[in-house]
C-alpha cells in the first residue's frame, strides 16, 4: 500500500465517496439512482433543510456577535483589607513666598465686597492670620522673585442687571469678565448669588498666585505634624503606627493624611464587622482660617477610597462636623466588567490613550483630569493649577498668559457638555470597588465628660483651646458587614454553548458532523488532484 493512493477515474472516486460517506440524506441526491421524482423530492428536502440550518446559524451568530452579557450577582465573605481613608483639615497653607500677594488679594476682595454691597462687613472677616508656612529650601528657588508677580485688576467683580425676564422684577447677577488674548470674544462668568461669584473670583486669583510656587513643595519637614490634626487614632482597638499614613498637601483641602494607602499591611485586615473593630479618630476640626475666602466650610473632610488611588475629595468627600461623633458604616460593592468584545473597559489603564498624570492606579476620574490637563496645556499653553502638570508645562498665571481664564472656562464648559472627547477616551476600569456609606451622628463630647476629655487632650496631645467651642470631632469608620456584593458580567453565550447549539442544529437538520465536512473537503481535494493528474497524463500522451 502506498502513502497516498489515488483513484483510477472520477467514477471510481465518486463511487467510493458515495459508498463511504457519512452524510445523511443529502447524499441520496448524488448517489441514489435516477428517479426524477425522488431526485426532485430530495433536492427540495435538501434545500429546505439547508435553509433552515443557515437561518438558525445566522440567528445564532448574530446573537453571539452582539456579545450579550448577563449580570450575575454574588455575595463574597472572604477576609479583606480595610479601605484607604483620607482626611483633610480644609485649611490650605499660607506659604510665605506668596503671603504678600494673598494679603493683597484679601484686600482686593474686601474692596470688591464693599463696592458690590456697600457695607463694610469685611473688617472682621479679613483679620490676618500671621502664621505663614515657610518653605525650607528658599535658596534653590530664589530666582522666582516675589516681585515679578502682580495681581491683575482686569478681572474685577461687577454687578449686572438682567431686565429681560417678564416678571418685571430686576434680577441681578454678579460676575467677572474674561476676554481672549486680543481682548475680543469677551464673556461674563456670572452667578446668581454674589457669594458664589466671590468664591469663584477668589479661587481664580488664588490659582494665579499659587502658580508662583515651585511645583514640588517639600512640606514633609516643616512644622505641621499629624499630631496637630489627629489626636487619637485607633484601628481594631490598637493604636495606629507611624508607618500607616501618608501626608500630602492639597491646594484647597489643606493638609491631608491617607491611612492605609497601600493596603498591604496585615495590620489593616478587617476581621470583624462592627464599630469596635473599625478605625476611630479624634480630630481637631477647628479652622485656623489661613485663607478665609477659599472655603466657607468648617470641619474635616473624609474620603473612603481604594488602595493606591488618588482621592478626589471634591467628588466623593464626606464632611465631618465639629462637636459631633460621626460613625460611618461602609459596605463594599464590587463591579467586574468583562471587557474585550463585551464592552469597553481597562484593567490597568495601560491601553488608554491618555497619559495619566497621577502616579496611582487607574480611575476614571484620574483619566478625565489628565485628559483635561493635556488639552488645557495644548490649547491654552499652561496647566490648570488643581491638576498635576505634564512634563515641560507650567501652571497658568495671568501675568504670562493673560487670556488663560477665558480659554479655561470655555474648555471647561465644553468638557461638561461632552464636546471634548475625554469621556470617549477614558473607559471605565474593569474592576471597580464602590463603598456605600451611611452615617449616624451623636453629640461629642457629652456635657458630662467634656471637661476631662478636653483636659486629657490638652495635656497629652497639645490641644490648646481652653474654651468650650466645638472644635474637636470624633469619627469612626467601620464595616457594616464584611460580606460584599459583587456584580459580575458574564457572557450570555459562551463559545462552548455556541458550539453545542450549532451541533444540535447541524444534527437536527443535516445529520452530519465536522468530520463529514472534512470528508467533503477531502473529496474536493481529490477531484482537483485527479483532474490535474489526468491533464498531465493527456499532456504527456499528446507530447509522445
Amino acid at each position: 500500500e502506498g502513502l497516498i493512493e489515488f483513484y483510477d477515474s472520477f467514477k471510481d472516486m465518486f463511487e467510493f465517496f458515495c459508498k463511504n460517506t457519512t452524510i445523511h440524506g443529502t447524499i441520496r441526491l448524488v448517489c441514489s439512482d435516477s428517479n426524477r421524482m425522488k431526485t426532485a423530492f430530495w433536492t427540495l428536502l435538501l434545500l429546505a433543510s439547508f435553509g433552515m440550518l443557515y437561518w438558525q446559524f445566522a440567528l445564532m451568530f448574530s446573537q453571539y456577535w452582539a456579545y450579550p452579557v448577563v449580570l450575575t450577582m454574588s455575595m463574597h465573605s472572604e477576609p479583606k483589607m480595610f479601605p484607604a481613608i483620607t482626611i483633610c483639615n480644609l485649611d490650605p497653607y499660607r506659604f510665605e513666598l506668596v503671603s504678600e500677594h494673598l494679603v493683597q488679594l484679601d484686600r482686593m476682595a474686601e474692596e470688591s465686597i464693599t463696592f458690590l454691597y456697600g457695607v463694610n462687613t469685611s473688617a472682621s472677616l479679613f483679620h490676618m492670620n500671621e502664621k505663614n508656612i515657610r518653605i525650607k529650601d528658599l535658596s534653590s528657588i530664589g530666582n522666582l522673585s516675589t516681585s515679578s508677580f502682580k495681581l491683575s485688576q482686569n478681572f474685577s467683580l461687577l454687578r449686572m442687571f438682567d431686565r429681560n425676564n417678564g416678571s418685571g422684577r430686576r434680577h441681578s447677577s454678579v460676575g467677572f469678565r474674561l476676554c481672549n488674548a486680543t481682548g475680543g470674544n469677551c464673556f461674563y462668568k456670572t452667578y446668581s448669588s454674589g457669594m458664589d461669584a466671590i468664591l469663584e473670583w477668589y479661587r481664580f486669583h488664588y490659582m494665579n498666585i499659587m502658580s508662583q510656587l515651585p511645583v514640588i513643595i517639600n512640606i514633609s519637614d516643616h512644622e505641621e505634624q499629624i499630631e496637630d490634626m489627629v489626636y487619637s487614632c485607633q484601628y481594631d482597638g490598637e493604636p495606629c503606627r507611624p508607618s500607616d499614613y501618608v501626608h500630602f498637601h492639597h491646594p484647597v483641602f489643606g493638609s491631608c493624611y491617607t491611612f492605609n494607602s497601600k493596603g498591604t499591611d496585615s495590620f489593616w485586615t478587617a476581621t470583624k464587622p462592627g464599630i469596635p473593630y473599625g478605625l476611630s479618630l479624634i480630630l481637631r476640626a477647628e479652622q485656623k482660617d489661613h485663607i478665609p475666602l477659599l472655603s466657607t466650610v468648617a470641619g474635616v473632610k473624609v474620603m473612603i477610597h481604594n488602595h493606591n488611588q488618588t482621592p478626589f475629595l471634591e467628588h466623593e468627600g464626606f464632611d465631618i462636623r465639629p462637636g459631633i461623633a460621626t460613625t460611618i458604616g461602609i459596605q463594599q460593592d464590587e463591579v467586574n466588567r468583562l471587557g474585550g468584545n463585551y464592552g469597553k473597559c481597562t484593567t490597568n489603564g495601560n491601553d488608554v490613550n491618555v497619559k495619566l498624570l497621577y502616579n496611582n492606579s487607574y480611575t476614571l476620574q484620574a483619566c478625565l483630569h489628565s485628559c483635561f490637563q493635556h488639552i488645557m496645556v495644548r490649547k491654552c499653553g499652561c496647566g490648570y493649577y488643581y491638576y498635576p502638570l505634564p512634563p515641560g508645562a507650567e501652571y497658568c498665571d495671568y501675568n504670562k498668559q493673560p487670556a488663560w481664564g477665558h480659554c479655561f472656562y470655555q474648555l471647561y464648559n465644553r468638557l461638561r457638555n461632552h464636546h471634548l472627547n475625554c469621556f470617549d477616551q477614558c473607559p471605565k476600569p474593569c474592576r471597580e470597588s464602590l463603598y456605600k456609606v451611611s452615617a449616624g451622628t451623636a453629640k461629642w463630647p457629652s456635657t458630662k465628660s467634656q471637661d476631662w476629655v478636653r483636659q486629657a487632650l490638652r495635656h497629652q496631645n497639645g490641644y490648646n483651646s481652653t474654651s468650650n467651642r466645638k472644635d474637636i470631632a470624633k469619627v469612626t469608620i467601620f464595616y457594616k458587614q464584611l460580606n460584599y456584593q459583587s456584580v459580575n458580567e458574564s457572557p450570555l453565550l459562551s463559545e462552548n454553548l455556541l458550539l453545542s447549539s450549532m451541533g444540535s442544529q447541524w444534527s437536527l437538520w443535516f445529520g452530519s458532523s465536522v468530520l463529514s465536512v472534512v470528508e467533503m473537503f477531502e473529496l474536493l481535494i481529490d477531484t482537483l488532484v485527479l483532474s490535474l493528474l489526468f491533464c498531465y497524463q493527456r499532456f504527456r500522451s499528446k507530447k509522445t
Partner: protein
Amino acid sequence: AMAPGKKITARIKRTLPVKGPQAPTLSELMRWYCLNTNTHGCRRIVVSRGRLRRFIWILLTLSAVGLILWQCAELLMNYYSASVSVTVQFQKLPFPAVTICNINPYKYSSMKDYLSELDKETKKALETFYGFSEGKSKVRRSVDEGNSTGTDFFKQIPLLKFEDFSKTATDLRSGQKRKIEGSVFHKDSSIVNSGDSNDIIGFQLCDANNSSECALYTFSSGVNAIQEWYKLHYMNIMAQIPLETKEELSYSADDLLLTCFFDGLSCDKRHFTRFHHPLHGNCYTFNSGENGTILSTSTGGSEYGLQVVLYIDEADYNPFLVTSTGAKIIVHDQNEYPFIEDIGTEIETAAATSIGMHFTRSRKLSKPYSDCTETGADIPVENLYNKSYSLQICLHSCFQKAMVDSCGCAQYAQPLPAGAEYCNYKKNPNWMYCYYRLHEKFVKEQLGCQQICKDACSFKEWALTTSIAQWPSTVSEDWMLRVLSWDKGQKINKKLNKTDLANLMVFYKDLNERFISENPANTLVILLSNFGGQLGLWMSCSVVCVIEIIEVFFIDSLFIVMRRQWQKAKKWWNDRKRDQSGKPPEASDLERQGHDNPICIDEDLPTFNTALRLPLPQDNPLPRTPPPNYSTLRLETAFTEQLPDTLEVEQH
C-alpha cells in the same frame, strides 16, 4: 451419555445463545467496528486508500474525540453556576423591628453605689496625670469605705504612665516608679503621641500564675486609655450585679420615650418590648412581634413611619464610660438579634433625624452552588442568642464557648451559655489576661471559628439613608418644650432642655421590595442537550454510539483477551496431560486460531446462530450486516438492471 452437569450447560447455551464478539481477534474487531459504526470518521480510517490518508483520518477522529471530551468537561464544570434574578414587588411591607437605646446604659445617679470606688480612682488618675480636678466644690467623699468592691484589683491593674519606653512606669496610686519586668508584648508605638512630654498612658495585664507574662496596652491618646481602663473595671463590677437589678438601674420606657406615632396613629409604650443589652442597658424594641402581630405601614413616606421623641437625660450620663450624647437605633428583622454595639446608628440630640429605609431580601442557593447554611442547624456551634442564625451570631457564640472552655467564665458582652457565669476578677482573677490572649487568637483565626461559621443563605437588609435637621426650630421651641415638659412633668418636676431631646423618624421610602434570588442557571435537560450538541457537532455521535463504543472497546475486547488467555491455559493443560500420557502434540492445533480453531467454536450442537455464521470475508469491503450508510450503490445497480423503468439512465 452426557454427565448431568454438561447437559445443563448445553441447555443454557442452547436457550441463551450468548455469542462472543463479532470478530475473533482484536484487529478484526476494530475493523468490524469501524465499518459498521454510525460514528463519523471511523469508517474512513478503514476504507481510505493510502497510509497517509489513513493516518490523517486517525488523527482527525482522535482530535474530534478530544474536542468532545474537552467541551463536555467544560459544560460539566459550568453546570453549577447560578443566575440571579432581581424582582421588584410593590406590596404591603411588614415594618421591621426598631430597637432604640440610650447611649448611656445606666442612670449614673443610681449607679453611684457600685461605681463610686472606680470613679474615685479614675479622677485620681486624671489628677495625677493631667492635673485635672473636677469642679473644686464637688469633690464627693464616699462614706461607705467599707464596701470595697474591688480596690485590690485597681491596685493590681493600675493605669501607668510610660516614660519613653524606658521600661519604667509611674504608678498612678503611689507615684512610685515601677520597673516593667518580664516578657512584655505590646503593640507598636503610636503615631500620635504628644510633642513635648513623651509619655504614654496605658495598663498592663499579667498572667496571675506567672507574673512575668504580661500584655502591655498603650493608647495613642489618654482619652482612649482612660476609657478602656474604665470599661475593663466597669465590666467586672457589672458582671456581679444580677440582671433584675440591672434592669431596675437602667431607663424605663417612660424615661426614654416621650411621644410615639406610627402610621398616622398614636402609639405608646405597650408597642415597645424591653430588651436588656449588656452594654447598652435597657433598650426598647418597637414592633418586636412578641405578641404575634407584626405591624405594617399602609404607604411609604415619613408621615407613615415611626415617629418618636426620645428623652436623653444628659445630666445623668456616666462621664467616663460614654463620651457622646444621643441614642442608638438599629433596624432589624423580628427574628434577628440586634447587634447595637456593632452596627447601631447614632442619633443626635436637639435634632430631628429622619431615616428612610429601602428593603432588600436576598436568597442564595446553598450547596453545591455556594457554601451557605439555610437554618444554621448544620453548624456545630450552639446558638446562644435564641434568635435566627446569622454569621455574626455564630462567631460570637463560638468565641463565647471558647472563652468558657479556656478561661472558665463567660465574657460580659455576650449571652451566657448554660451553666456558665460572667467573668469578674473576684472569682476568676486571671480572666482578663486569658481573654486578651484568646481574642488575639480569634483575630488571627486560630480558634477555627471563622472556618466553622458559614454565611446564612437568605437575609433581609434595610438600607438606611439618614438626614438631619435642626429640631425644634427656634420659633416652635418654646411651645413644644412647654408641652413636652408638661407631659413629662406629671412624673418628674424638671424643665426640659432641648439638648435632652431627640426626634426620630423611621419610615419606608417606598413600599418596593427588592428581591434578589439566585436560580440554577443550568438544568439537567439543558446539560444533556448541550452534550448532544457537542457529540453531534464533531462526530454525529449519540448515546447509542457511546454504548456501542463501550460494548466494542471494553466488553468485547476484554472478552477476546480473556478467550485468548483461556485458550492458552487450556493448551498448556492439554500439553501437560499429553506429555504425561506420552502422546505427541498435534501440530495443526497450534496454528489454527479464531473461527478455524475448533477449540474456539462451541462444542455443542449447531444452533441457528452458529449454523448461519459465515466465514469472515478476507478482502471484501462489503460488511456482513447492512451498513447504516447509503452506500449500497453496487447492490442497487444489480437490482436496477432488472427494472426496465430505470434502464434509460443506467450507464452500464
